[in-house]
């Protein structure tokens, strides 16, 4: 039982579990924080960005000024943004038999794995995960491909060069492994390898291992996985939530009696209460609009946005915002809103009940019908005709490096009337804003992360009582910025085993039994002439000595059944049987 850790990002995991001679990849997260080192991709020519000075070394040499630009004291790579892939060298990824996906955020590296490593196995995921994952990938590919960039910087990646660069570029890991975004054909090829599964469906792998997805309560179709044989059980908990939002609640009971529990995808903002953040979000939004400013919400096209729209649906009339237009801009905006309405079976009880009426489960259907919420594939086309200010815009990408959001940052950044509200927790908002400095626009940080916090984790662990817990090393110590908060770490007995990128762990387990099956042909022959067993009956329990196809038993039963049995009981230490009569 071995765990290969291919990603160091605790919420975008990628691990490989070797279990009973099957090789199972758990999630395929893509670390996109690497893009923060790049300049944003503007949709329309940005004079400000193109005027940024090239970076000059302390000694005055300018050989990097084409690749690196400086903005308010930060240095950025002027190139197509690149992503930090999971480790591909730690083991031969073509030997991976199956990939289990826990939620749509954790599958973004899938095309890199399935299309570049010789992978020939099967990927398992739920239907909402696949559909929404496809939308996320589509948006990503689209927002990068629509801004073709002539130059591709590579000089700075040279080890000697990287050493002299300022932080954070200097400390960036494995820059040589960073890759450009995949293409739509690759996405389609990757997604075609997925087999759809339902919650609590038992999937047999090669007859040796059974895997089962369980509802994890975090997102539409999000799942935890049980990987088990008859006598070993590994639970993989990734991105779970106990809050009541739109998805089906988390299934905790089925995680009980695990030998090993792998714990990833906890909240990235353990100190923020999501409910409070939503309140703050609404009040900041209302205040800005009332003062005549615009609100920009950088977000993913699916997930928390559904909950935000639902809150706004209840809030806008009472806050007097009924006439403010809400825009949702993404190449997949329409699809995302439509898809959210058809996954009744994956929704929480309240939403299911609505579908039974039948009514759309999410109230954004009504927002669209009443024209309060409008969605557009991009800022070009219809949007430019309909665009009215002040307004609220939901658009991606939350990294602020590509997508329509770049345009609104350039457009609204100069006025202090406008506000950008960060709700997605994946990127540090200060880093995200760095290439836009100096900025007059107000910035509000309301990260909404519904995943488990440490209090919930310790409660969960007490409840399900795994023998061993394995988690990323980040969870075994307090966050670096709050080193005194010893409550912000996983606390359990025995202490969790921790892993970091590129490490291989041997997981502890002890099993004493294995399941086999006795064919009915064998068991039925008990007592018959050419049978299989010798029977002893000590007290209440039976004891069969069994030999398959064993001539001795045949012979014994042939000649001596009664005699021997009787003799065995009378004379319990040894028996001598003469075969001379034959």
């Amino acid at each position: 039982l071995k765990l290969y850790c291919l990603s160091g990002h605790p919420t975008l995991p990628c691990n490989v579990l070797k279990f009973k001679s099957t090789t199972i990849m758990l999630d395929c997260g893509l670390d996109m924080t690497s893009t923060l080192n790049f300049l944003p991709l503007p949709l329309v020519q940005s004079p400000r960005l193109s005027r940024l000075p090239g970076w000059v070394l302390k000694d005055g040499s300018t050989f990097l000024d084409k690749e690196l630009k400086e903005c308010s004291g930060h240095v950025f790579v002027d190139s197509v943004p690149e992503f930090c892939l999971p480790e591909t060298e730690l083991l031969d990824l073509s030997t991976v038999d199956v990939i289990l996906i826990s939620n749509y955020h954790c599958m973004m590296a899938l095309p890199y794995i399935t299309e570049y490593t010789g992978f020939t196995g099967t990927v398992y995921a739920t239907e909402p995960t696949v559909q929404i994952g496809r939308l996320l990938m589509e948006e990503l590919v689209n927002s990068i491909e629509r801004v073709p960039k002539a130059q591709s910087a590579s000089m700075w990646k040279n080890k000697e060069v990287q050493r002299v660069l300022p932080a954070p570029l200097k400390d960036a890991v494995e820059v040589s492994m960073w890759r450009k975004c995949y293409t739509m054909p690759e996405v389609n090829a990757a997604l075609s390898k997925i087999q759809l599964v339902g919650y609590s469906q038992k999937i047999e792998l090669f007859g040796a291992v059974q895997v089962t997805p369980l509802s994890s309560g975090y997102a539409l179709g999000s799942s935890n996985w049980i990987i088990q044989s008859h006598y070993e059980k590994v639970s993989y908990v990734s991105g779970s939530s106990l809050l009541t939002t739109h998805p089906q609640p988390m299934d905790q009971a089925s995680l009980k009696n695990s030998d090993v529990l792998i714990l990833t995808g906890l909240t990235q903002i353990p100190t923020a209460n999501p409910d409070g953040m939503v309140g703050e979000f609404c009040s900041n939004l209302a205040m800005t609009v009332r003062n005549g400013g615009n609100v920009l919400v950088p977000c993913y096209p699916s997930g928390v946005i559904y909950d935000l729209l639902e809150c706004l649906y209840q809030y806008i009339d009472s806050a007097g915002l009924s006439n403010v237009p809400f825009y949702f801009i993404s190449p997949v905006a329409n699809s995302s809103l439509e898809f959210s309405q058809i996954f009744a079976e994956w929704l929480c009880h309240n939403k299911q009940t609505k579908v039974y009426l039948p009514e759309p489960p999410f109230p954004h259907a009504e927002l669209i019908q009443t024209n309060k919420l409008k969605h557009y594939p991009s800022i070009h086309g219809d949007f430019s005709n309909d665009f009215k200010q002040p307004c609220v815009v939901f658009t991606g990408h939350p990294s602020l490096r590509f997508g329509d959001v770049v345009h609104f940052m350039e457009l609204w950044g100069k006025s202090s009337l406008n506000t950008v509200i960060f709700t997605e927790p994946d990127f540090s908002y200060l880093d995200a804003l760095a290439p836009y400095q100096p900025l007059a626009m107000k910035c509000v940080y309301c990260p909404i992360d519904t995943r488990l916090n440490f209090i919930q984790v310790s409660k969960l662990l007490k409840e399900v009582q795994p023998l061993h817990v394995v988690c990323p090393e980040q969870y075994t110590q307090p966050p670096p910025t709050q080193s005194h908060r010893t409550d912000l770490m996983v606390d359990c007995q025995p202490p969790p085993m921790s892993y970091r990128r590129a490490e291989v762990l041997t997981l502890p387990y002890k099993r004493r039994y294995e399941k086999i099956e006795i064919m009915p042909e064998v068991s039925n022959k008990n007592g018959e002439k050419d049978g299989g067993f010798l029977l002893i009956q000590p007290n209440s329990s039976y004891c069969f000595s069994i030999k398959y196809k064993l001539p001795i038993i045949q012979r014994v039963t042939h000649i001596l059944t009664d005699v021997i049995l009787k003799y065995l009981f009378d004379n319990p230490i040894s028996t001598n049987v003469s075969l001379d009569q034959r």
Partner: protein
Amino acid sequence: MPEIKVTPLGAGQDVGRSCILVSIAGKNVMLDCGMHMGYNDDRRFPDFSYITQNGRLTDFLDCVIISHFHLDHCGALPYFSEMVGYDGPIYMTHPTKAICPILLEDYRKITVDKKGETNFFTSQMIKDCMKKVVAVHLHQTVQVDEELEIKAYYAGHVLGAAMFQIKVGCESVVYTGDYNMTPDRHLGAAWIDKCRPDLLITESTYATTIRDSKRCRERDFLKKVHETVERGGKVLIPVFALGRAQELCILLETFWERMNLKAPIYFSTGLTEKANHYYKLFITWTNQKIRKTFVQRNMFEFKHIKAFDRAFADNPGPMVVFATPGMLHAGQSLQIFRKWAGNEKNMVIMPGYCVQGTVGHKILSGQRKLEMEGRQILEVKMQVEYMSFSAHADAKGIMQLIRQAEPRNVLLVHGEAKKMEFLKQKIEQEFHVSCYMPANGETTTIFTNPSIPVDISLGLLKRETAIGLAPDVKKPKLMHGTLIMKDNSFRLVSPEQALKELGLAEHQLRFTCRVHIQDPRKEHETVLRVYNHLKGVLKDYSVQHLPDGSITVESILIQATAHSEDQGTKVLLVSWTYQDEELGSYLTSLLKKGLPPSTA
């Protein structure tokens, strides 16, 4: 020997009132709980007194499974759970759970409000009954209790229809409900994996028919509608709100678009509109094409089909109207029918089966003068067409499903006895499995032969696989171990461990055998000859000549003595423990063949 018992309370050699009791490994499951369209008395519901005469049914049933929302499969549910009394779990898919109470309420209204029956279930009972329903996902393994598990498979037929696998340990039954093996305009085809159940209970509505291709029927339908509309006539299509209505709407919608037709299409308000909503929200249950394109164009948002208003029936000019109910026995479809029946330019198309006694049945059997209430005589001049669009598997489809699932036995329900008989023979011939077709109240018993799962100690497994050559997957392997049966569990452990656990002393069993050899030489010379012989033959074994004059082959002992009477005969005493039986008996037979002529 373990057995599975099946008793249909309804749908045994009959269509309607589906209700089948299954007993498997001590668990009792009821499959469907339907009503019979053809009866208005006690016979309309299954006879639950078969299960128990007194006391609540909860004590006798572990769970109830409903395959889909048609009333002949769920119509008796509120009566069963609220009036007879059952509090256990009822399983159905999400769409079935959503739509079922609406159809039950509709059924109740017609029976109580229109026909004035009393002693029928109430709206509250429907609500209370639905509270006992647990919704299941496709392919989800639902653990009813520790031993009993069920799993749903896609069945086509209608929105949310499912086949169910019922499994206890190694024994399993699959119940198909109603299913369709060919995808239609709005639903996909039924699918099941090679789950090899002990018993497959399948519907057999179209046991003897191989239906012509659906395309032909569709073309026929469109042609008739088109012709009528072209000559300025009106087309009435009586339908039930859910199911065929949506398929036909899609068919007409696409045809109207392609042909650029202008004549209005209406569907009667109420249920049908609501029904389309269900299809929109449960679009993941429809066929692949609709699912793929729903973002661009939701097939259930019809452009050409508009809601019907009562006043429209008198509008001049051509039109097409879908109206409920489907058998023309009451409501809007009957009203419109009365208005239009007198004009030979008009047409009524019956897209489904009609029960005896209904207006639909009468006109389909050729009656042209109908007596309506108030002794009025209605003369039917309009054209009457029948077109089967019901989505059941035909004989080919049923055989295909059997091939997919590979059951050990097949049991037919939901069909006519004569047709079943034909299909039964066909199944037995082609698949060489037993096929049953019990009548209502008749019990079929099937014997099963399950494998016995055993826990084997890992130490033993490793030790046993380490012995001998590298494991060969294809060859059976000899294993030594002790099986301990305790508290209903089986464990296979090493004999030492078993003895320790049970507090027993090991019992030695030794076999001895005397082999006579003709050899006039001295004893020790005979021994030497035997030794040389064995050493030559048994090259892979350790053969030793001990100082006391005996020979050992591994742990087998051979001693030679002269025969007391005949000095020319030597007696070889071979002795071995039962663990060495194989080698021991081989050795004896080897020695019995005698020694080779001496070379010394």
